[in-house]
């Protein structure tokens, strides 16, 4: 095992290259600039590697469409405002059933916002983001190690389901360094028949998202929907932490989940039985897995660096079977474990072990 100390953004670049990514296009934006920087340095070193600093985010995602159609593992990255710009292309990837990996190192918003870590893009990421009704697989790493593992997995999932897959992290995850061990990537499984490499003597192939006949378009929508249902049933991932005896379960992902773990340590020292449910796949959301916990515990507290977005998925999962509290810090504020500890004390412990419902 070769452990290295690397920054989150660079780790994503390295993991992508190890997973066989041979095309990257992107446009600079803080706090993810080390991804294009790393790709610019490393991609030309590997056989077939192409790096392009595009003239805009929109150009970058469309270059990714082209590379993906040609059968190359392709990736782009940006941060919140830049991801908004890419949505037209992401919708096209979904329509054309092309695999690609998109990295979003979220920052404070809406608008240009700021450059601090935030989780305000959950709705955008998990509901497709662009127009027309589609889904993307969304993975939410909480450690730098997971950034490496999930980036590799994102390429495999994207190929398997011919779907864009997104890594949804934030500025803090991108900037921090932690030790990491790169796992052995799996060999790529993607049929050559899907790659556009010139018809030669054979029949011409077309990949397109423009389907003018409404009935045909409808059928395409249902085809996509069937695929999404398969993904929703078979690809959910989550972690649970100290939930065995938990009377209160915190629900958090990414950076917020790290902070929650720190708070749980303090709360348990104070004698409170608190655990964590951490979705790793944000879409598909681990709905059934979370619902199981409503049999054990009546109290849940959603904790996000937003005004409450994943909160809606938690409500859908628990369907009124449990009480749900909420604590959020939007706009680029990174709360501390001590703050969350105090919130639990206020909203739960001082209410006699019954969480205050968030309206």
């Amino acid at each position: 095992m070769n452990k290295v100390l690397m920054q989150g953004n660079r780790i994503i670049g390295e993991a992508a290259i190890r997973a066989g990514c041979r095309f990257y296009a992107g446009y600079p934006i803080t706090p993810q600039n080390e991804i294009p920087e790393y790709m610019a340095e490393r991609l030309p070193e590997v056989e077939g590697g192409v790096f392009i600093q595009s003239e805009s985010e929109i150009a970058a995602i469309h270059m990714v469409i082209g590379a993906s159609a040609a059968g190359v593992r392709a990736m782009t990255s940006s941060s919140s405002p830049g991801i908004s710009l890419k949505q037209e292309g992401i919708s096209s990837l979904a329509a054309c059933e092309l695999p690609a990996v998109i990295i979003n190192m979220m920052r404070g918003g809406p608008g240009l916002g700021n450059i601090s870590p935030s989780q305000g893009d959950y709705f955008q990421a998990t509901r497709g983001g662009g127009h027309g009704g589609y889904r993307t697989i969304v993975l939410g790493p909480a450690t730098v190690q997971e950034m490496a593992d999930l980036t590799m997995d994102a390429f495999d999932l994207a190929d398997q389901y011919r779907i864009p897959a997104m890594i949804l992290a934030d500025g803090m995850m991108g900037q921090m360094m932690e030790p990491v061990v790169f796992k052995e990537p799996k060999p790529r499984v993607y049929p050559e028949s899907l790659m556009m490499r010139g018809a030669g003597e054979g029949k011409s192939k077309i990949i397109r998202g423009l389907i003018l006949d409404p009935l045909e378009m409808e059928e395409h929508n249902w085809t996509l929907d069937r695929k999404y249902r398969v993904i929703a049933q078979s690809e959910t991932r989550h972690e649970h932490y100290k939930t065995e005896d938990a009377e209160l379960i915190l629900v958090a992902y990414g950076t917020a989940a790290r902070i929650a773990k720190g708070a749980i340590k303090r709360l348990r020292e104070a004698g409170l039985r608190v655990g964590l449910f951490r979705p790793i796949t944000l879409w598909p959301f681990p709905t059934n897995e979370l619902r199981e916990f409503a049999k054990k515990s009546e109290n849940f507290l959603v904790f996000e660096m937003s005004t409450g977005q994943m909160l809606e998925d938690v409500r859908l999962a628990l369907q009124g079977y449990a009480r749900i509290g909420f604590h959020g810090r939007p706009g680029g504020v990174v709360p501390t474990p001590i703050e969350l500890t105090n919130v639990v004390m206020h909203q739960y412990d001082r209410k006699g072990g019954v969480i205050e419902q968030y309206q």
Partner: protein
Amino acid sequence: MMVKTLLSGFGGQGVLMMGHALAHGAMSAGYHVTYLPSYGAEVRGGTANCTIAVSNDEIASPIASEPDHLVVLNTPSLYTFQNRVARGGSLFLNSSIVSVESSRHDCRIYKIPASEIAEKIGNPRTANTIMMGAFLKVTGLVPSDIYLHSMEEVMGSKKKTIVEINRRAFAAGYDYLKESL
């Protein structure tokens, strides 16, 4: 054990490099470690800082709301961060540049004239490594030999002579302070 250290100074004083080397050293010594740099709309000559968390267990937050140790290379950093340090923590000041006194009477204060020592050694840019020598003498957070190895690793392709002068700088900082915790 969970120790959080905040290092701060002017951009260009080598604050991020020294933090990177410390984090690498902690990893090599077998600890869990996180390194979080300040990032953003920084300017040359502005303040740079980074936080290193070292622990036996998984680290929840890489941010230090109450760092145990503070290493400051310039005066603005002292003003910005001294009140964050945990009660009973320690402050390491580059006293060649930080001429004001710290207002924290509940912390241990270590003054190291790092820039002057660096001049004497022959390279004013080694003040950061001198501070690390003094810091590790007192805290023992990472064994010196492991830190020096990590420092070389982090410096990477830089010239052998630079590595050599930094080794001497580390020793000078280490020997400057007589006590250790």
